[in-house]
């Protein structure tokens, strides 16, 4: 029968283990029992789910193992009460964190809870009072960026500001922005030199900066197998660092090398941590997850410019709302000759280059 070809569901598999009955046969028998032809299990429905409680798999696992953690905390309490209390609290918070959902699917209350937990954990770890925002996208806003390759002088002040703002790993010297020193008349980025170290601007060269272009059609989002990265309504592609499994598909899919992987636990000296954070932005990452430029979501959603644009001393970086016809970015797009990188790929980056 065609029913026998279907995969075994989790509930049916559990029953197989406990009763020895073949769930495939059982499913055949119960097919259509609720009158709608679905595959729901009337027995589980009656009893309110596994273990007589209606709860998700995550919640039930948490309940099963939660007791063990509490016991461990009590045992430690005997040695150093204060320290043990802190350790106990931290363990409990980490436990809750481990079983939370995807940020996109959380209710406002759940978002607030996880933010409170993360703030408390950060305070316990670094001694800093951090603030993690969950600010939503503004309506009628689509962020766009323009980069003036005539004006950029290669100072890399933007790179420095970006690292400080976004709590990037200092040990691996992670940077979202690359400034390429290019020979005049050449447009091949592979010939660009990013680690130049001399007085700039150098004679006969221009400077072209890359970062995440916040594509309108982002290939990195398409390939993510777990839905840990997505495009926000204001056009910023973000990552839920606690949902990312670190498979690096997105890094491979990005044609612009905009994504970075944490091969080790990121290191940011406590006194250098930027305490103004966003859940989808610059809050500290962990080992084994991806990260990327978010147009400084913690700043731009508050009306500020990204740190790179604010730090640029030459005004080569133009940031603004593409939906506002009076914005600078719209003026640039309407009046200057602009181009984007690898336009033929159809990624539709919201990051343009232009010249004086």
């Amino acid at each position, binding site marked *: 029968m065609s029913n026998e070809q279907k995969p075994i569901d989790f509930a049916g598999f559990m029953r197989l283990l406990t009763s020895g009955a073949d769930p495939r046969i059982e499913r055949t028998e119960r097919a259509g029992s609720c009158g709608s032809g679905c595959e729901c299990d009337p027995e589980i429905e009656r009893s309110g789910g596994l273990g007589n409680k209606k709860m998700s798999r995550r919640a039930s696992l948490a309940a099963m193992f939660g007791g063990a953690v509490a016991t461990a905390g009590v045992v430690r309490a005997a040695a150093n009460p204060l320290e043990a209390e802190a350790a106990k609290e931290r363990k409990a918070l980490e436990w809750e964190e481990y079983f939370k959902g995807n940020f996109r699917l959380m209710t406002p209350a759940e978002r607030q809870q996880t933010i409170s937990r993360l703030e408390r954990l950060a305070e316990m770890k670094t001694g800093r009072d951090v603030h993690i925002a969950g600010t939503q996208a503004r309506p009628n806003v689509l962020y766009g960026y323009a980069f003036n390759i005539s004006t950029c002088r290669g100072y890399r002040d933007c790179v420095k500001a970006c690292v400080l703002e976004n709590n990037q790993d200092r040990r691996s010297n992670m940077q979202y922005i690359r400034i390429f020193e290019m020979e005049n008349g050449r447009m091949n980025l592979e010939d660009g*030199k990013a680690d130049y170290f001399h007085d700039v601007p150098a004679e006969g060269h221009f400077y072209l900066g890359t970062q995440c272009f916040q594509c309108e059609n982002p290939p990195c989002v398409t390939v993510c197998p777990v839905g840990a990265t997505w495009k926000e309504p204001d056009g910023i592609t973000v990552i839920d660092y606690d949902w990312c499994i670190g498979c690096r598909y997105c890094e491979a899919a990005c044609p612009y090398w905009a994504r970075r992987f944490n091969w080790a636990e990121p290191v940011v000296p406590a006194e250098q941590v930027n305490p103004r954070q966003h859940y989808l932005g610059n809050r500290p990452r962990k080992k084994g997850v991806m990260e990327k430029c978010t147009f400084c979501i913690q700043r731009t959603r508050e009306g500020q410019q990204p740190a790179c644009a604010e730090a640029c001393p030459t005004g080569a970086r133009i940031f603004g709302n593409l939906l506002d016809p009076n914005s600078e970015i719209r003026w640039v797009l309407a009046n200057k000759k602009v181009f984007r990188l690898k336009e033929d790929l159809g990624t539709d980056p919201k990051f343009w280059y232009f010249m004086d």
Partner: protein
Amino acid sequence: MIRIVTGILAALLLVSCFESEHNGTGIGPALLVSPDDASRTVATLDAVPVPDATFESWVAGHNPDARACRNCHGPGMTGRTSRTLPEQRAAHWQVSLVHAPGMTCRDCHVAQDPGSLELLGESKLGFEFANELCGKCHSDQRQDWLGGAHGKRLTGWAEPRVIKTCAGCHNPHSPALETRMPVAQPTIAPDRAKKAGH
């Protein structure tokens, strides 16, 4: 809609062609503040009456004496000979004219009144209107600056728009920017460096 432009020296002059170009939707009145005090500018926007979408010359708290030549250069300058007479050279010790070839002081400054600027012989201007003077030659840059493609923005991406004026970045006497060493040296993996032709 009012767009605010500010910086070290200049404010916009009422020029009739602006009105036809922008028709009241472009650049509004300009605000004069010191460059290191942008936050105060924004804070006072609501308190100051702003003419409605005109290009009227409007300067908040403007005090011409505050930017007079003598505040920096000292007294004793008379006419264009001032740089050659020993006793007057000190008054201009830091001025080095590296602008377009053949330019002299009097191309911009009024000889008899060095505290004023001369708009290509047309009219006498205060220093706060230096942008207009620059724009007489650098019209492309001026156009970009008004539109939003040139100039350093000091506020966030939302309104109001506050950008530096010409002299906020360029020394009018030596407008080319100087070179310097970059910061934030990147670490580039060997394979990437090889690809990049190192």
